């Protein structure tokens, strides 16, 4: 277990390094700069600005400075929000995005797993068809369609929930459901397939033959292995939630990292855009690692 853990953590280092280098090249090779505006700057002003942000140095030296900053946890100054560092901006947006993402994942798991397990237990009866049907439709309604439709129904139609904004728990519900729904549907399909598979295994038959109560068989013996595909899917699920949060934050006008990221991309605020991508990537790699460790705990055979 320790060896596996060390190997996995060591494996993430070249990945992180590659992300940093690729991000940096992206930043510097992009045509047009952050100081291209409709009205041309005075050349002297421009030179001063570029010197201020270190853009006049050779590329390699800039990369060195950037990586040096990163090692100290410094993502550099924002190009567009004058006087703000990228760290400060991210510190503002990240809690919103993390709350949203975590709630969405929680919803996806809490809806998806029971739905899938019930479908498997009622295999080929109407409960199964209903659950599979819901899951199938859920997979195919993209979040940018689901979000507005939910707003139409629950906010404008029934007036049950607030329109947008951020702060109270009621304002988290719709965005989190929008973000989690597709994943819930997918998880339900995986959980159903996993459960169906496990219920045919010999050790489940053995457990039943011993005369164990059915609930005991399901919860103690079957569920653990049946959840393996779900746990292995956590990595991709988290990735898609991170990506989806950008859209959902825009629909519901939330002040999260996603909005900052898109604005930074559009305004060529290079350091902020790269800082966000780095944060997203690191988060994803880290969470993937946790998901793999979890799978390993559930079934030691999965560790390579």
């Amino acid at each position: 277990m320790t060896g596996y853990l060390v190997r996995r953590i060591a494996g993430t280092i070249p990945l992180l390094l590659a992300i940093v280098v690729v991000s940096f090249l992206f930043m510097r090779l992009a045509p047009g700069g952050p100081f291209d505006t409709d009205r041309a700057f005075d050349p002297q002003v421009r030179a001063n600005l570029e010197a201020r942000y270190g853009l006049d140095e050779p590329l390699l030296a800039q990369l060195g400075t950037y990586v040096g900053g990163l090692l100290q946890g410094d993502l550099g100054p924002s190009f567009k929000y004058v006087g703000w560092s990228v760290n400060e901006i991210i510190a503002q947006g990240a809690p919103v995005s993390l709350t949203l993402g975590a709630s969405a994942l929680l919803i996806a798991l809490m809806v998806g797993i029971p739905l899938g397990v019930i479908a498997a237990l009622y295999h080929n009866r109407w409960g199964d068809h209903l659950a599979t049907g819901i899951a199938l439709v859920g997979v195919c309604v993209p979040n940018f369609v689901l979000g507005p439709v939910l707003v139409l129904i629950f906010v404008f139609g029934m007036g049950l929930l607030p329109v947008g904004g951020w702060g109270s728990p009621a304002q988290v519900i719709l965005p989190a459901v929008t973000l989690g729904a597709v994943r819930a549907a997918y998880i339900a399909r995986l959980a159903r397939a996993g459960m169906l598979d496990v219920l045919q295994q010999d050790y489940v038959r053995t457990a039943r033959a011993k005369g164990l109560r059915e609930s005991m068989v399901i919860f103690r013996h079957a569920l653990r292995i049946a959840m393996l595909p779900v746990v292995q899917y956590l990595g991709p699920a988290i990735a898609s939630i991170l990506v989806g949060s950008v859209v959902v934050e825009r629909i519901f006008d939330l002040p999260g990292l996603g909005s900052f990221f898109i604005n930074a991309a559009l305004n060529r605020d290079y350091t902020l855009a790269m800082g966000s991508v780095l944060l997203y990537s690191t988060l994803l790699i880290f969470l993937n690692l946790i998901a793999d460790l979890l799978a390993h705990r559930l079934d030691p055979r999965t560790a390579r």
Partner: protein
Amino acid sequence: MSRERPRDPWRLALGRFAHNRAAMAGLFVLIVVTVAALGVEWISPYGVAEQDLARARQAPSWDHPFGTDAVGRDLFTRTLHGGRISLLVGVVATFVSIVIGVTWGLVAGWNGGRVDELMMRFVDLLYGLPFLFFVVLLVAWFGQSLVLLFVALGAVQWLTTSRIVRAETQRLRGEEFVIAARSIGVPTPMILLRHVLPNLLGPVLVVATLTVPTVMLEEAFLSFLGLGVQPPMASWGSLASEGAAALNPVDSMWWWIVFPGALFSLTLLALNFVGDGLRDAFDPKTVRK
């Protein structure tokens, strides 16, 4: 040597596919949507850019089954037109991803050893990356063209294809007919072309069908953020974006989001049915219970 094979696997697969009701329904929907999107000029009396300010923001009616937009364009026409772009991006980007994925998987699987190890480690590495964020930067900073969209989305989606192709190639490499071909000195490119690639066609077709909806979703994601196709062109994603932006409690124009969204979802559903059907048809062992 006879060219006739006793039990052509393709005919068997097609037979199984034809008996799959969900898959056939999906195929039917797909054909209808595609034909409508391609033939919108003949179906709709309105031009896609035809504005009629007197009839702006109208709710659905017999004249305008999907309603009209902010400048009085017929939304039915625009939605079908948008489908054309969405389907085009889906198909072309998938093609790009298949070309990359098949080449990569073929080289890795055929060579084996260190080459294979290195190439597949690379794929493993890339699997953990949030590519779409890089694609966002790519289109935001290097210009928003359809061609870039094709290439960027295709370049993001080849990983799964390469894994499947690699595994298949490895298997085929040990098959007797390939060993026989090698033992009589058939050059490698010939073996790949004549014996390996044809046998990859089935699995690749299945991945491709399942890649199309993914790519379409990603195009829609970018277009929704204003980074995909640019006006006056529209795709299902950019139409949904207009609809979402117009949401307000007073006058929400629900038809702007509901119709393009519904058609998009329906198409994705159909594609998934067809993909699942093809998978079951080509690999009867994995038929879902």
